[in-house]
């Protein structure tokens, strides 16, 4: 496979590993946008990254930075800066990541699923949604020109078990959400934190597209929870993600179609509509069905 010629997609930072995946004096090979790359950690714990040639030899160096407890790299010149997420610097938060999940579909489908509240009661039944309260109340989307981000705000949904800490209380609650689309293939949500009135957990989804229809998903979180164990929190997030994986790998086509009438949205899909429109205006082609192919 050749690396995409889609410049918008090339000029982004992508997660490529968690720091603890690369042991001292060892290497870790992976793929980014169909380009094979190698991460290496030297005996001073410094990490470098290279493109790999067909014969596995190391070619040009590519940049690597660590943010949100995750390593990011890019194949493009002057990439769009990584987002500012203040919650990751707040002292009373726990920074936890939940492993990386392989999902064989387009990164666009994964972002859209993350933005979607209407599936909670059908896919995450009795956890993030209750089958007898499926209604998605009206919310708003905003474009923030200074950061070129799309936000969905004033979102709320009734949840029987909104999080690991909420599960302990044994009763449902109206969870409040905001979503931020941080880049074409990364998104995050703020969700009302149990026992911390007025504050929100920050949960990110950064996607490493191996190819157009094969992705690794990284979910670093900055959360407010001084009750649950780390294992409990990871188990909760992983059980949610497993349920989404079944949906994501069975959407057809895998590449997201943007042509009118190929997929019919409803009011609850306001954020998805804004995302699709923003992808189109940003010139993204990667992960999308080409117009000729539809």
């Amino acid at each position, binding site marked *: 496979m050749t690396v995409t010629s889609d410049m918008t997609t090339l000029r982004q930072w992508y997660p490529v590993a968690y720091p603890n995946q690369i042991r001292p004096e060892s290497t870790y090979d992976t793929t980014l946008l169909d380009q094979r790359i190698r991460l290496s950690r030297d005996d001073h714990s410094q990490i470098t990254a290279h493109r790999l040639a067909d014969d596995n030899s190391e070619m040009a160096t590519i940049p690597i930075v660590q943010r949100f407890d995750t390593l990011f790299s890019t194949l493009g010149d002057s990439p769009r800066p990584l987002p500012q997420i203040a919650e990751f610097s707040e002292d009373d938060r726990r920074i936890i990541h939940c492993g990386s999940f392989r999902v064989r579909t387009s990164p666009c489908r994964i972002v859209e699923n993350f933005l979607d509240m209407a599936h909670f009661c*059908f896919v995450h039944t009795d956890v993030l949604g209750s089958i007898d309260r499926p209604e998605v109340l009206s919310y708003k989307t905003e474009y923030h020109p200074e950061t070129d981000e799309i936000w969905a705000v004033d979102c709320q949904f009734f949840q029987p078990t909104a999080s690991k800490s909420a599960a302990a209380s044994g009763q449902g609650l109206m969870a409040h959400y905001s979503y931020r689309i941080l880049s074409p293939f990364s998104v995050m949500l703020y969700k009302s934190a149990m026992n911390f009135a007025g504050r929100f957990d920050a949960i990110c989804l950064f996607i490493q597209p191996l190819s157009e229809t094969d992705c690794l998903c990284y979910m670093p979180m900055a959360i407010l929870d001084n009750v649950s164990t780390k294992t409990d929190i990871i188990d909760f997030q992983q059980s949610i993600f497993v349920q989404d994986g079944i949906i994501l790998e*069975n959407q057809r086509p895998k590449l997201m179609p943007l042509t009118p009438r190929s*997929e019919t949205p409803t009011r609850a899909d306001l954020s998805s509509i804004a995302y699709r429109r923003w992808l189109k205006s940003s010139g993204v082609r990667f992960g999308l069905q080409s117009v000729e192919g539809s």
Partner: protein
Amino acid sequence: MTLFRQPQSVALSGNIRPGDVHPVILHEKEFALWRGNDGVAHLWRDRCPHRGMRLSFGFIRENHLKCLYHGWEFRSDGSCQKIPAHPDLEPPTTLCVDTLPVIEKFGLIFAVSDTQKSSPSTHQWQPVRSLFFDFPQEDIVSKLNQLTAISFEESGDIYLSDDQMFACGLQTRSGRQCALHMSTRHRSRRIRLDTARRMVRWRHVITEMVK
């Protein structure tokens, strides 16, 4: 939606019970085959018009199919009846799943290009089994005839045995894959099971012949 000149057998009637939904591949396209609690079989494109989720993962409520992803509920004619996220919203009439007409006869379900009347005798026929092959369907019945004491004759879109006790339908899954579905009106469970067991051997021998 019309895709085939020849009617295609997609499954054995007795294997799709009321409330069941199965994925089916015809000419490289994915379909959801399901049966409502009223006993009527349906063949739909395996794709929800909302976000493309495969409807063969959905579930049957009475005579409607609900998509697994967002619970959108579709009537037996393919039109959308309900969007749970918006209980007060009347779904637009244009919101509709692509459907293919099916008929049932000789214990087989056929995708047809237009709706014909089903044979009323279908309930006398019982499923034997379906075989799936990794090669095109040309001559598959003549190969079967070489192997078995039963001789099948083409009769319209189906193949009937000399004694009219067995029926076969063929399915083109792709240019390289086909399926054969066999039913019988033998009442004897032993004959059905014996034939089903022998079919597994035939599958092996026919695959060797094609190599």
